[in-house]
């Protein structure tokens, strides 16, 4: 089979799984998941073969085809596939996570009433995500971009009977829409300047002066397209939907809201990286930096296990975006891949914890305790050993501990920010500070999560007794993903645990950029690598040590500290997520409601009641007047007047009708005589 056929199979097999589950799933029942598993399994096989292709040493993209979709006038839209190393690796990431999540879901949603529909939506999501990965043009990417938004909406609202889930999926959809509008405008600016949607074509167009040196317009277009990533990858200030999206089933959170869909924004930015001028990259770096530190601070105080991970995801996505912003293209994409593995593992492990908690609560008939609240957990290490060890590996990875994948990618990003500061100076000190600050906080809150959940004595012994490890279908994905969180996976054939040199760095080379001298950027990054690694090791161990102190040895009274910090409002600020939701509520939601109320007031009370009804009133009065004059004057006087006149004359002339023929004859004779007289007189 040639690569084009394989690309078609990769794209449409998950869609077939979607249609199969939707149309036949109910009839077949629980075993319908086999179709989805096999379909995604084949997709995974093909994705592996694509990545294997990389090692055959083929130069350039493996597949580059494009065909006309439709033409209206001079406007032609093409659809096509473009598979290079980046796309192949991304596709493998999607396929691995998707397959493992499918496997995991067979147990996690065992008794769900919409079991087959859930698998159908997973298929739809995988189809859409593969569409984004394979897309050769921004317009095709945009189409699938909206499709992942749709499947995300459907899956967040899987338990739509819960109001919180129904609200969360609406919030996700609408927030994404804000970013997508910017993205569409950006795509259109690029199209009208360069006449193509094709990403390679855009890059060529920009290099050959398609913007006539108008770098400001190009930067605006780039930032607008990047707005799509801000929405989809939950960057500040559009991050608000992602924590709420945790209302969806946990495997969905792992697949969509941790590993793949939210990384689509980063992937898209990776794709358009060559055409982003330095000023646009600056904006991107700042957005990423703010997101990274800001979400990390919020994650410290959250008590819901999934919400901690959600804010952690936002923070890590901020890292990737910041990496792209500072020109560390390779590091950004590297972190996307490593993050997908360890964050997928963390989410699935948290799902395993929630699953166990859920069963425990079910056993003791407790329906009020929150199974996701870490304050109800503790000491689960001995009850859920596989979950504990896999989650610990992923936590070490995300905290940036050597030997694990997160260390390599985070280190590369931090080196990128340091290099950026070294060349730009001034305010850019913010970027490394945000990076290292987020790193220390990440290490802290991730170990806080581990300690609160798995260590020390259980906080609710009555539930604790009923906890037990999750079944095979759930633990297998955890083990696989935790293995994929080790550093050596990404550095083969080298086994140096502190250097990212390996197959990944060889096959995802730095790409040219319109405004940056990539060679010098790379040199600067290599130069900053040593100091970045030292600092990041220090901050990671500092964060972990603090966490040990706070939550393991409990040498510090956390309650006392929070009350002290709360005297200046710091604790509440983090707990309430910097009041971003409240700010939006006050700045957008409520003014908007007020505005619509005002408009409805103007429309109803003034326009409708006064103006429109005024016309009614006027018409009524006019018709009353005209009716009065018609009846009283025209009818009573003129029309009846004729009647009365006729009656009057009739009464008078009646007297002439004597009934005596001779009188009539007399009249006739007199008349004739008169006629004669008149005729004679002329």
């Amino acid at each position, binding site marked *: 089979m040639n690569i084009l056929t394989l690309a078609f199979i990769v794209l449409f097999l998950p869609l077939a799984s979607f249609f199969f589950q939707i149309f036949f799933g109910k009839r077949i029942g629980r075993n319908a998941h086999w179709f989805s598993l096999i379909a995604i399994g084949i997709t995974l096989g093909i994705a592996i073969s694509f990545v294997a292709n990389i090692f055959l040493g083929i130069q350039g993209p493996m597949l580059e085809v494009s065909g006309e979709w439709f033409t209206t006038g001079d406007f032609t839209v093409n659809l096509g596939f473009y598979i290079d190393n980046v796309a192949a690796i991304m596709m493998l990431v999607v396929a691995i996570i998707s397959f493992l999540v499918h496997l995991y879901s067979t147990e996690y949603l065992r008794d769900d009433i919409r079991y087959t529909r859930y698998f159908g939506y997973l298929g739809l999501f995988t189809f859409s995500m593969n569409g984004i990965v394979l897309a050769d043009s921004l317009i095709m990417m945009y189409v699938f971009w909206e499709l992942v938004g749709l499947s995300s909406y459907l899956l967040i609202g899987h338990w739509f009977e819960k109001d919180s889930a129904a609200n969360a999926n609406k919030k996700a959809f609408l927030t994404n829409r804000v970013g997508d509008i910017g993205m569409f405008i950006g795509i259109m600016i690029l199209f009208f300047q360069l006449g193509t949607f094709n990403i390679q074509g855009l890059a060529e167009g920009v290099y050959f002066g398609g913007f006539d040196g108008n770098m400001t317009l190009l930067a605006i277009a780039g930032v607008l397209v990047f707005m799509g990533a801000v929405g989809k990858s939950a960057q500040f200030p559009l991050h608000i939907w992602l924590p709420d999206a945790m209302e969806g089933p946990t495997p969905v959170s792992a697949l969509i809201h941790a590993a793949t869909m939210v990384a689509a924004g980063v992937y898209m930015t990776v794709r358009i990286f060559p055409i982003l001028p330095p000023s646009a990259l600056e904006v991107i770096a700042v957005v990423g930096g703010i997101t990274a530190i800001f979400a990390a601070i919020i994650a410290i105080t959250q008590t819901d296990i999934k919400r901690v991970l959600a804010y952690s995801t936002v923070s890590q996505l901020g890292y990737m975006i910041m990496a792209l912003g500072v020109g560390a293209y390779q590091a950004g994409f590297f972190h996307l891949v490593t993050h997908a593995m360890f964050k997928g593992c963390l989410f699935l492990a948290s799902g395993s914890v929630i699953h166990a908690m859920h069963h425990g609560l079910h056993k003791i008939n407790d329906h009020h305790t929150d199974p996701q609240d870490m304050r109800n957990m503790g000491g689960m290490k001995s009850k859920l050993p596989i979950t504990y060890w896999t989650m610990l590996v992923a936590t070490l990875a995300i905290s940036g501990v050597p030997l694990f994948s997160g260390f390599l990618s985070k280190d590369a990003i931090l080196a990128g920010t340091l290099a950026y500061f070294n060349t730009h100076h001034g305010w850019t000190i913010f970027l490394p500070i945000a990076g290292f600050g987020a790193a220390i906080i990440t290490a802290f809150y991730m170990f806080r999560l581990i300690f609160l959940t798995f260590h020390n004595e259980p906080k609710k012994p009555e539930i604790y007794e009923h906890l037990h490890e999750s079944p095979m279908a759930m633990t297998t994905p955890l083990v696989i993903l935790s293995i994929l969180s080790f550093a050596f996976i990404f550095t083969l054939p080298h086994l140096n645990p502190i250097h990212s040199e390996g197959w990944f760095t060889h096959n995802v080379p730095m790409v040219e950029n319109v405004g940056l001298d990539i060679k010098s950027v790379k040199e600067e990054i290599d130069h900053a690598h040593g100091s970045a690694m030292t600092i990041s090791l220090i901050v990671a161990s500092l964060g972990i040590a603090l966490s040990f102190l706070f939550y393991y040895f409990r040498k510090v009274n956390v309650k006392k500290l929070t009350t002290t910090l709360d005297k200046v409002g710091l604790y509440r600020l983090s707990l309430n997520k910097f009041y971003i939701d409240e700010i939006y509520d006050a700045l957008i939601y409520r003014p908007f409601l007020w505005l619509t109320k005002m408009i409805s007031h103007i429309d109803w009370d003034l326009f409708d009641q006064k103006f429109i009804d005024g016309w009614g009133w006027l018409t009524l009065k006019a018709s009353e007047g005209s009716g009065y004059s018609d009846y009283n004057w025209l009818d009573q006087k003129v029309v009846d007047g004729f009647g009365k006149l006729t009656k009057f004359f009739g009464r008078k002339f009646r007297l002439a009708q004597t009934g005596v023929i*001779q009188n009539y004859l*007399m009249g006739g004779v007199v008349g004739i005589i008169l006629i004669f007289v008149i005729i004679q007189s002329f």
Partner: protein
Amino acid sequence: MDSLNSYLIISAVLFTLGLYGVMTRRNGIAILMGIELILNSANLNFIAFNRFGGMEKLDGHIFSIFVMVLAAAEAVVALAIIINLFKNLDTVNIDNADTLKG
């Protein structure tokens, strides 16, 4: 008196007498007699105009004969009406024949 005028004068006198009778009498038979006078004055006119009007044909004569026939027929009908009137009302005074008056 061998001219048209003398005939016309006589005819006019006859007509006026007839008309006067018709308009003033209350007796149905008297009214009928007035009508006969009017018809005969017309007949006299027809004859006179035929004689002095220079007409070669006998149009006037024939017309007057028609009028006579008409007068005869009229007398028959009128007298029948008057007889019925008398039978019903015991009078020939036409003022009494007012039963249809509303």
